[in-house]
């Protein structure tokens, strides 16, 4: 008996060992269902359409066109199908191993779609996004940063791979030196969202996409929206001829669409956040105010620079976290200023040796907030100011026009403080950082000197973190202490945590309000330290002349900046002989 058991055990073990070996030799059993593709896919067609079904492996395809679910007793596909009236095609395939594909459905709508906007009747926000019209655009808008308020943060060197303005406590929600963060207060912020009032989700809800906010004819059929007093959702303002609004909606956005609805009002008021965009940008006529956008200048639309491809816009700037598109927005491209980075692009030959390291904006935007005011400082801890229209308190803030930028190196990536991050003090400014361009004087090629709006704020800090104080509490009570405590609760900190008010700051790159050719920054604007203190940002000598000059000859007095720099421009010596940085891209003689 024992022997038999032992023999059986041995046999079992042998079998156990042998089975995998045996299986390796035979073909692996096919357990993968076939995939059938219809071409073209369903959609709207003006006339009969011929549909081909193809399978990725030997299989039999079954289909129906009467809306019923096909089975293996349905018609077998053998040749392309001609669909001449609106039909729903359902199909699946079964491969030779018997694997069944799940049933797929395509709807072919035959008949002319509204070929023109001219006959449309308004039926609600969802009307734009039907399959006969713009369902593709609706899904493009839905996935864009304009809708999701978050996106690809690959140009950020801090935080997770997806970041943005939308509130979250997972480290992805950006702070700024204006309203700090939206911390659960979606509603007032939604006034600036391309939806119809509801929070963005990952599911596409056509009725929550407001195409009209960007696409309305601001001259002949202006559209505006108001909140429904009961639902809080948006609806067209009373008295609008909405049929006319949609009939005229096939228009490209004008500056007024982008600025009037949102971009001029960022930060909570006209011109508050962007030092170079305001409601005035809609109507500037004098090119001196904005050479590109003034009606008497280029009169350009925003998307002339910020091109949209599948409703993804280019141009992130330095302080926004997500990029909608990985394509960069450059001043010199095949379509715009193609020669300005070349040796003959500028009349003044000296400009050429700058363009590699000095951004166009640095010479072409001398001042910002020309013709309007922008916020320079905000103090949440100071006595609040009453806003009569909103019946609420607002933080004290300093507005100013005609500001001189601060200059910093920027390599295109940024550093940002998000809700929950440990606060980081910048010894250079004495403030806790909210947003920074990354870059240094000796950074890689592509790093350039840019002009920035420099903005400060006085914000609470507790446990080493900047607190997203509850703006709503502050607005209604002017009680800073309570607003901070509510903010701490939101962030999961005990409300008894001691806090202090600290200085914070951020840099925001300037791109708009370029000045006309006649008022470019002169050489002296930078080189004699009139406006830009170059020596203070890294351009001083690396050691005294008694050390530097004697590398090559006796100690001499440098003379002015053009004279001393003949060492590089005509004698061909690299900067690093005399400075702490090098310009390898220029092929100069290295020490």
């Amino acid at each position, binding site marked *: 008996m024992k022997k038999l058991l032992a023999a059986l055990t041995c046999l079992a073990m042998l079998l156990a060992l042998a089975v995998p070996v045996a299986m390796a030799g035979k073909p692996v059993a096919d357990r993968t269902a076939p995939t059938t593709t219809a071409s073209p896919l369903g959609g709207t067609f003006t006339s009969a359409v011929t549909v081909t079904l193809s399978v990725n492996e030997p299989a039999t395809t079954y289909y129906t066109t009467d809306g019923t679910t096909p089975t293996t007793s349905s018609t077998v596909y053998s040749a392309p199908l001609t669909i001449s009236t609106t039909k729903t095609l359902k199909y699946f395939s079964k491969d030779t191993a018997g694997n069944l594909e799940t049933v797929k459905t395509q709807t072919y709508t035959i008949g002319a779609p509204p070929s023109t906007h001219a006959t449309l009747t308004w039926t609600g926000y969802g009307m734009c996004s039907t399959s006969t019209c713009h369902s593709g655009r609706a899904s493009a808008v839905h996935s864009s940063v304009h809708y999701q308020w978050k996106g690809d943060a690959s140009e950020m060197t801090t935080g997770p791979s997806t970041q943005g303005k939308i509130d979250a406590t997972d480290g992805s929600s950006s702070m700024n030196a204006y309203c700090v963060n939206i911390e659960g207060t979606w509603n007032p912020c939604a006034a600036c969202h391309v939806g119809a009032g509801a929070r963005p989700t990952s599911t596409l809800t056509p009725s929550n996409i407001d195409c009209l906010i960007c696409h309305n004819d601001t001259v002949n059929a202006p559209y505006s929206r108001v*909140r429904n007093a009961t639902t809080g959702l948006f609806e067209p303002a009373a008295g609008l001829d909405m049929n006319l609004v949609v009939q005229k909606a096939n228009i490209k956005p004008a500056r007024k669409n982008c600025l009037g609805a949102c971009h001029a009002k960022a930060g909570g008021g006209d011109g508050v956040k962007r030092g170079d965009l305001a409601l005035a940008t809609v109507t500037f006529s004098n090119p001196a105010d904005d050479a590109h956008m003034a009606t008497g200048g280029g009169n350009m639309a925003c998307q002339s620079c910020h091109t949209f491809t599948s409703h993804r816009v280019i141009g992130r700037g330095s302080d926004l976290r997500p990029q909608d598109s990985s394509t960069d927005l450059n001043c010199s491209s095949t379509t715009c200023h193609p020669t300005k980075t070349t040796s003959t692009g500028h009349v003044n030959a000296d400009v050429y040796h700058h363009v590699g390291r000095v951004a166009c904006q640095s010479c072409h935007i001398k001042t910002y907030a020309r013709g309007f005011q922008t916020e320079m400082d905000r103090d949440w801890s100071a006595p609040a100011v009453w806003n009569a229209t909103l019946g609420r308190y607002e933080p004290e803030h300093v507005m100013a026009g005609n500001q001189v930028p601060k200059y910093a190196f920027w390599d295109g990536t940024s550093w940002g403080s998000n809700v929950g991050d440990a606060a980081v003090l910048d010894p250079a400014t004495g403030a806790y950082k909210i947003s920074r361009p990354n870059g240094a004087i000796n950074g890689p090629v592509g790093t350039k000197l840019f002009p920035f709006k420099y903005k400060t704020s006085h914000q609470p800090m507790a446990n080493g973190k900047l607190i997203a104080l509850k703006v709503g509490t502050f607005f209604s009570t*002017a009680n800073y202490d309570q607003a901070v405590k509510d903010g701490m609760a*939101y962030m999961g900190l005990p409300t008894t945590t001691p806090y202090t008010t600290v200085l914070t700051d951020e840099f925001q790159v300037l791109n708009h309000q370029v000045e006309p050719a006649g008022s470019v920054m002169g050489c002296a604007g930078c080189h004699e330290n009139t406006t830009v203190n170059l020596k203070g940002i890294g351009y001083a000598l690396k050691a005294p002349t008694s050390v530097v000059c004697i590398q090559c000859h006796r100690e001499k007095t440098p003379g002015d900046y053009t004279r001393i720099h003949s060492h590089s421009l005509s004698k061909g010596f690299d900067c690093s002989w005399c400075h702490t940085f090098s310009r390898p891209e220029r092929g100069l003689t290295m020490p």
Partner: protein
Amino acid sequence: MLHFATRLFLVIVLASALSAVPSASRAAASAGYAVEIADVGKSSDLAALLKERGYSTVIPPKNMWVADQQSNCAVWIGKNVPLEMLRAVLPEAMRFNPYLKFFYVVGDRGEKPPQAVENTIHVGGSIEAALEKKLNVIDQQEMLAQLGKAASLEELHRYLHEKNRPKPEQKPAS
């Protein structure tokens, strides 16, 4: 108990005396109080009319929250503003802006506005703020009726407090 005729007589005397009060003396009652009107619709006509009746009125410079009658459909009521003044101003304000639908006594939720705000009626507050505060829509007819029948300022304030109680399902998510 007075005779019905005597009572009727007294009522008539009282009523005519009240209606005969010259605007100047009514204005005296409103001294120190003001009406602020958002610059939408025919705001200057409303201001002129109220001024004529002896009220001090201001149309503050427009800001980005001042859009149109529909968006500026709230009335912020200073808590010291006398009932008589509300009875005179609100019906006219509603006549000029048929969209007015939020009526709120500033301070009702414990906020402490500056002194001047407590003595001011602000006509044309923003809907954004009304929704943010989760105020409830009050029908103009109902508001008018309430203005007429409230026995005291406190009673009107109590009514507005009840009407504006946030609906439970609309509790702010925090």
